[in-house]
Structures are given as structure tokens and as C-alpha cells.
């Protein structure tokens, strides 16, 4: 319930959400993406749409249809837009276009505002010239270094939208349409972020054999080279020379990422028999375990080489944990260096920052508390809701100052 957030963000924040929502009375917001389950977009929509409804906004959610072949192509597009090397063929483009054409014909576009998420349904905007309406494209992907062929293919559709939304300033492109910055968010009431009793935390530590009597440094992330797991171990080993502590590297493998098993094997090999390094393969759906590991940690690391937004950082900050993270993707938005955490650029810098925090617990506590407040005002789902409400209202008001 929307009112459940009141003790966390304050009554006035919820009152303002209700007030903004009343200004959208009579408008239908039609969200369109490619799946109801799995993936970050579906997770956000599954929380966001019910909350919008509770605010009396008529928000609905539809998905496009597509064959396995179509989704293989969209996966390739996704990776290519993220800057990964992908071989995209003409046939891939024609599969994408044909399926999109079918969806254009079959999908009922009834919303006053049609809110399209990610590239899969991007072509639907071609119907704008027939049906009008307001169209928004929400790009959840880091397109700062996209595969040009894919970007140039998508761009003629993107520019037909009334507005585009990106998660970080660096993700935006020069486009002839309005672009907005809306960061993703975490839900403080979800299993991954809610308060846990000490008993639960202790039982998770006991389950994985992690000692409680020394500081715990944790990185929670998929087994992916971009998360630099080997770099994390190397930084930890530098710290461990002078300070007795443990490292927990907790994450899962992704079924759509053939590399993840290889990375896991390499990490395990690199960790070797070091009793202070705990490499944990956490099964999907173990949000409470992840939550407990984060809460049990002394410091949380996110030493990624590349990130979409890196919401695990906000998850850690929300638990008032001091964070050491790389300045990539959306991380600098979450970690303001020396105020809400420490930013680092290499293994040596990460080790230095870890030592600094382990030997200065008061400073670490101050950073953690600032981090929690930073997340409270900037990265919780209530701020995300407010931004979406404002985004919808902005479509009717092109000025920089809007009087509602």
C-alpha cells in the first residue's frame, strides 16, 4: 500500500504524490514492454503500476508478442546497445521489423499516454501518425557507447516519441526530442531491502559459515567480468595483509549469460583455499539472504568496470553501509565521493579506501548514514513514482516552470 511508505518518506511526500496524481485524472497511462516476468523492467512495472493505481492513476500494462527468434534478436540488440560486441545481421533487423509490424497491427493502443519501455516495442510509435496520443520511450539501457548500426536503426523511431527517458546523464544522446533523467529506484519494503531481525541475519551467516567476529567486506553481483570479481579479491588481499577481515562475494549466474559459469570457476580458483574468502553462489529468489548478507557486512564494495545503473549500491546505502565503488555508470549519482561513500578507480585505490574505512569506523558510520539519507530522498520508489507523475504532466506543459 502506498501509505506503508509514509513512515519511511514522511506524510508530506505521500500527500504530494496524491496531489500530483489528481492532476492526471481521466488520463490512461498504457505501459508496454516485452514481458510480465523476469528482468528489471518487469520488476519495476510490477511495483509501479499497482502503486499508480492506488494513487488513482489509471495505469495499465501490456506486453508485445514475439517468437523465441525475435527475443534472441532483441537480446542481441540489448547487448549491442550496452556496447558489447555482437554480430547483427540484416536478417536480425528484418526479424525485428516483421514482429514489430505484427504487434503494431494487433496491439490495442488505448492509452492517452503510451509509455514504451526499452527497445523491443520501440517501433510501435510508427502508429503515432494515425492515432496521435502522447508517446514516451523509457530507455533502461546504458546507450552511452552503443553499437552504431543498432542505434542508427532504432533512432528514426526514437525521434518520433514526444520524450525519451534515460537513467543517467551519460546515457543520453543528442536528440531532437525532450529527454529526461529518471534514475531507477529500490523498494524499501521489498524482501531485498526490508528490515530483518538479527536472528535471520545470524542464521544466514551460519548457513554460509561466515564468522561474525571480524569485519566483513561484501560485493553482491552477478559472476560477470564487468563486476571485476578478481579485482575485488586482489583489493581484499591487499587489505588482509594488515587487517583481519573476511570477503564475501555473493552472486548468481545468469541463464542468458554463458560466461557466468566460467567467471564463477575463475573466481573460485583465484580464491583458492583462503578461508577468509567466501564465494557464494546464491540461487535466484534468495532476496532475504542477499539482504541479510548486506546487513551483516561492515563495508560493501561495488568494484564494477561497467554498470547500467548499479542499484546494488543504493541497496547497500539504504542499509546505512559504507560503500566503496567504482565511478562507472550510475554509481557516481549514488555515491558522492567522501560524502555518501568512497569512489575508487583501481585495485590499489579500492584497497586504500577499504583500509581507510576499516580503521575509521566513525567515518564509515557517517558515510553510511549519509548514504541512507541520500537514498531516502533520491533513490526510493516514491521518488521514482513522483518523477513518472511529473513526466506525464510535463507532456502537456512544454515550459520549464509549470503551474499545476
Amino acid at each position, binding site marked *: 500500500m502506498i501509505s506503508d511508505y509514509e513512515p519511511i518518506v*514522511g506524510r*508530506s*511526500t505521500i*500527500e*504530494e504524490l496524491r*496531489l*500530483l496524481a489528481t*492532476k492526471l485524472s481521466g488520463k490512461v497511462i498504457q505501459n508496454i514492454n516485452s514481458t510480465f516476468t523476469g528482468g528489471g523492467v518487469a520488476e519495476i512495472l510490477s511495483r509501479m503500476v499497482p502503486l499508480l493505481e492506488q494513487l488513482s492513476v489509471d495505469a495499465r500494462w501490456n506486453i508485445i508478442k514475439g517468437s523465441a527468434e525475435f527475443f534472441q534478436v532483441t537480446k542481441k540488440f540489448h547487448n549491442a546497445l550496452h556496447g558489447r560486441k555482437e554480430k547483427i545481421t540484416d536478417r536480425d533487423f528484418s526479424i525485428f521489423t516483421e514482429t514489430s509490424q505484427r504487434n503494431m497491427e494487433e496491439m490495442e493502443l488505448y492509452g492517452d499516454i503510451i509509455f514504451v519501455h526499452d527497445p523491443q516495442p520501440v517501433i510501435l510509435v510508427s502508429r503515432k501518425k494515425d492515432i496521435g496520443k502522447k508517446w514516451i520511450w523509457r530507455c533502461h539501457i546504458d546507450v*552511452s557507447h552503443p553499437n552504431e548500426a543498432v542505434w542508427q536503426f532504432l533512432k528514426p523511431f526514437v525521434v518520433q516519441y514526444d520524450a525519451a527517458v*534515460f537513467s543517467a*546523464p*551519460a546515457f*543520453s*544522446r*543528442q*536528440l531532437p526530442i*525532450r*529527454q*529526461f*533523467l*529518471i534514475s531507477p529506484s529500490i523498494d524499501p519494503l521489498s524482501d531485498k531491502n526490508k528490515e530483518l531481525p538479527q536472528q535471520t541475519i545470524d542464521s544466514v551467516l551460519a548457513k554460509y559459515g561466515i564468522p561474525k567476529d571480524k569485519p566483513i567486506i561484501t560485493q553482491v553481483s552477478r559472476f560477470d567480468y564487468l563486476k571485476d570479481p578478481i579485482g575485488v579479491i586482489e583489493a581484499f588481499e591487499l587489505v588482509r595483509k594488515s587487517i583481519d577481515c573476511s570477503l564475501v562475494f555473493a552472486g548468481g549466474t545468469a541463464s542468458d549469460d554463458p560466461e557466468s559459469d566460467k567467471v564463477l570457476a575463475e573466481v573460485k580458483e583465484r580464491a583458492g583455499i583462503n578461508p577468509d574468502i567466501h564465494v557464494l553462489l546464491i540461487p535466484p529468489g534468495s532476496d532475504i539472504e542477499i539482504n541479510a548478507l548486506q546487513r551483516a557486512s561492515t563495508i560493501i564494495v561495488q568494484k564494477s568496470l561497467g554498470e547500467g545503473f548499479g542499484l546494488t549500491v543504493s541497496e547497500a546505502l539504504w542499509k546505512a553501509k559504507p560503500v566503496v565503488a567504482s*565511478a*562507472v555508470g550510475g554509481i557516481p549519482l549514488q555515491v*558522492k*565521493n567522501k*560524502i*555518501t561513500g568512497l569512489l575508487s578507480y583501481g585495485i590499489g585505490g579500492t584497497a586504500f579506501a577499504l583500509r581507510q574505512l576499516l580503521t575509521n569506523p566513525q567515518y564509515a558510520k557517517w558515510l553510511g548514514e*549519509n548514504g541512507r*539519507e*541520500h537514498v*531516502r*530522498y*533520491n533513490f526510493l520508489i516514491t521518488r521514482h513514482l*513522483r*518523477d513518472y507523475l*511529473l*513526466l506525464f*504532466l*510535463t507532456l502537456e506543459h512544454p515550459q*520549464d*516552470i*509549470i*503551474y*499545476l
Partner: protein
Amino acid sequence: MGVSWTAVVIPIAVFLVALVAMFWLRRRIYDRLMRWFERNRWEAGKMLLPTLRTPSILWNLFISAYLGLVVSILPAAWKSPTGKGLWTLFLVSVAVSAVNILSGLTVFYGQKFRMPWHAMLVTRNVVRVIIIIVTLLGVMEVWGVPTTHLFVFVIVVILAAALAFRDTAPNLFAGFQLSATQQIKVGDYIKLETGEEGYVTEIRWNSTHIKALDESIIIVPNSRLLQRTIINYGHPLKQAKEPFRFSSRTHLTELTGLKAKNLRELVDILKMAPDAVVYYHTHRFLEQHHYLTPEPSNDFAIWVSDALGNEVLGERLASVDTFEFPSLGVLRERLVSIIEEYLATRSNGREAMEEREFHFMKSVSAIFPTPYAAHDLREFVEALRKISLGSLYFHIFESRLRLGRGLNDFTIWLKDSLGETELGEEIARLDPYTYTLEGLRSALIQLIEKRIK
């Protein structure tokens, strides 16, 4: 059989002495009550006394006659019915007086608390019925008629009535208590521990009406007022010519797609950028980190120091005190001139690494009314405790600089609508950029509370 003269004289003497004593006692009680009513300003009491004037004479007569009868030597066959007769007359006259008094009080308080006419009639009739039943029971007791059945019936009726009026009765009695003790009066500003607050506009027989800060009327059952801790701030302060209506503001960040990787690019784009860009980059830190004591810094200074490693220029840009500037145009000119002065004598300097370029963004503000309104300083300070940080931010920062009003909204209202020039200027002198938003709220509240005292 002759009757001794004493048999006649003694009862008459007892009757006369008792009568004198009773009148003396009546006078004393009357005077005492009069003084007590005066002292406690109980208007209803003044109305009571004249009602009792005639009946109290009758009671004196009945009691004196009864005492005379008791000492007389009349035969028991005469004495007993006469005594019972006197008691009956006494009870009936007490009942008639009670009916008059309680009916009068019901009407008096009913009108005072704006009790609906039908409720007043029902209450009056219920009171009358109760008095009649009690008198009837008394009279039956006097004449030795069994009363058990009637007594049980009355108890059942009373219980049923108590059940029916279980919610109303406490409120009614609380209303009497509130009126008698004068703890809360119409016009007082009260705050309940449960959060309701505002000026008392009406005290009715069962509820009290409070005008809240959002101008809605809160109806609080009287019994709740007595059960809760209440802060009573007393009577209204000087009324403003126009109420202060609080607005709030929230914003969305719009990306311009423009980015700079060195000083020349930074200054060239800054010169052309709309005011909304200048506003965003000089207030972003404050908006996102308002829980910290803010760095007196803007995004340009932070970027020049961190991404270009030029701490000298970074410090110069950071030293620009936003509070000194009356408009965004002048602020922009100052920032541009600092960078251009630097570039006039030095090279463009180092370029930012990839992904650390300066991204120009702008702030799209949505301003909307809140339900809060203040007509005087008390309402103003209480609303200030409740409004969102967005609302505080809007009236202090955005209206002054972005909307070009030159002064913050609070100062303008205090001076123009309330005539509180000194307080308004004191608030205008406060540099809001050196506070956290919560700290700023506290500082404003302190200043206003001090003024109210």
C-alpha cells in the same frame, strides 16, 4: 377529655422556631450560592436561584409543619396520614422545582452548545420522566406501597437508556465540563496529541469544531478532548490582510544532450544555456544533499576540481555565493566571467576523461498548491512544521531566484500582509544556503516563536 395548653403551644412553638431557623438557613444558603455563582461566573446558576425562591418557602413550611406534627399529641390515626401528606407535598414540590431547574438548564446549555431542537426536547422530556418516576417511587415509599416491581422496571429502563446513549452521554458531560472549567474556549488555538490542530470555532453539546491549517473543519467529540493531552496556545494573534497560502514544488531533470569536456566548451555552452540550466547546476547539490550541511558549491566548481583537476579555478567558482545574486542572469554572468578571466591568461587545460564530461541539464519545476494556509503567525508557524521540504524549498529558494521575486515569499508576506517588517527582514537576512533544509525549518520556527512570545 380536656387538652392541656402545652399540647397546643409546644407544636406551634416548634413549628414557628423551625420556620424561623429554616428561613435563616435558606437566606445563608442563598447568599453563599449567589457568591459562588458570581465567583465562578456560572451564568446558569444565576438563572437557578429565582426558580427556587417560591418552592424553598414551601419546603420551609412543610418541614416546619412536619416537625410541629411530630411533637404534637394528635392520635396516631391522624398523625400518620397527615405526616405522609406533608412528605408527599414536600416531594411533589421538590419534583416540580427539579423539573423546572433541569428543564431550564437543558434549554440553557442546549442553546449554548447549539444542540438541535429535537435533541433538546428529548433530553428535557427524559429528565422530566426520570424525576416523575423517582418522585413516584418516593411517594409510594412514604405511603408504604410496595415499590420493588417499579424499581426493577426503572433500573431496566435506565440501563437500556444508558446503553442507547453510551456514546453520546460522555460527550454531553464532557461538553458541560469544558464549559464549566473554561479549559478550551472559542478562538483558542489548540493542538491535540493525536495531531489535530487549529483554532476552535465552536463548542457544541457533543463536539468541538476546529478549523485546521488546511481550512477544513475537524469535529472532535468532546469526550476525546478531555481524555487527550492538549496544548492550548490561547487566543488568535494579529490577522493578516491576506492569508499565506503555501505552495510546493517538485522537479524533473531534463537532459539537454549537451556536454563539455574542457573549460572552453563549458563556458561556451554556459553562455547560451537557458536560465533553467544555470538554476539546476547551482542548486542540484542542495536539492539532492539537503540533509547535509551543504557545500557552498555548484556543479561547475565540483566538476572543474574533480574532473579537470583544476582546484584553483574550482575554488574560485565554489566561492560564488549564490545568495548574493538577485537573478540567475547575474549569477550566470559571474560564473562565465570567472572562467573567461582564467582562460584569458591560461590554456584550456586538461580534458575530462571519458564518462566524466560535464552534462548540461535543466530543472523543470512543477509548482502546485498545498492545502495549508495561515492567517496569523500561530497558524504560519504551525504550518511551517508540517509542510514538505519541497514547499519550504520553493518559498525560500525558488521564488526568490528563479521566479525573480528578489525576496523569499515568507518575508514578502510578513511585511506586506502582516506588518511584521522586523521579523520579515530577519528572515531575509538568513542565508539559507548555509543550512540543511530541516535546519532552515528549525531556524525559521525559532525566529517566529520568539516573535510570538
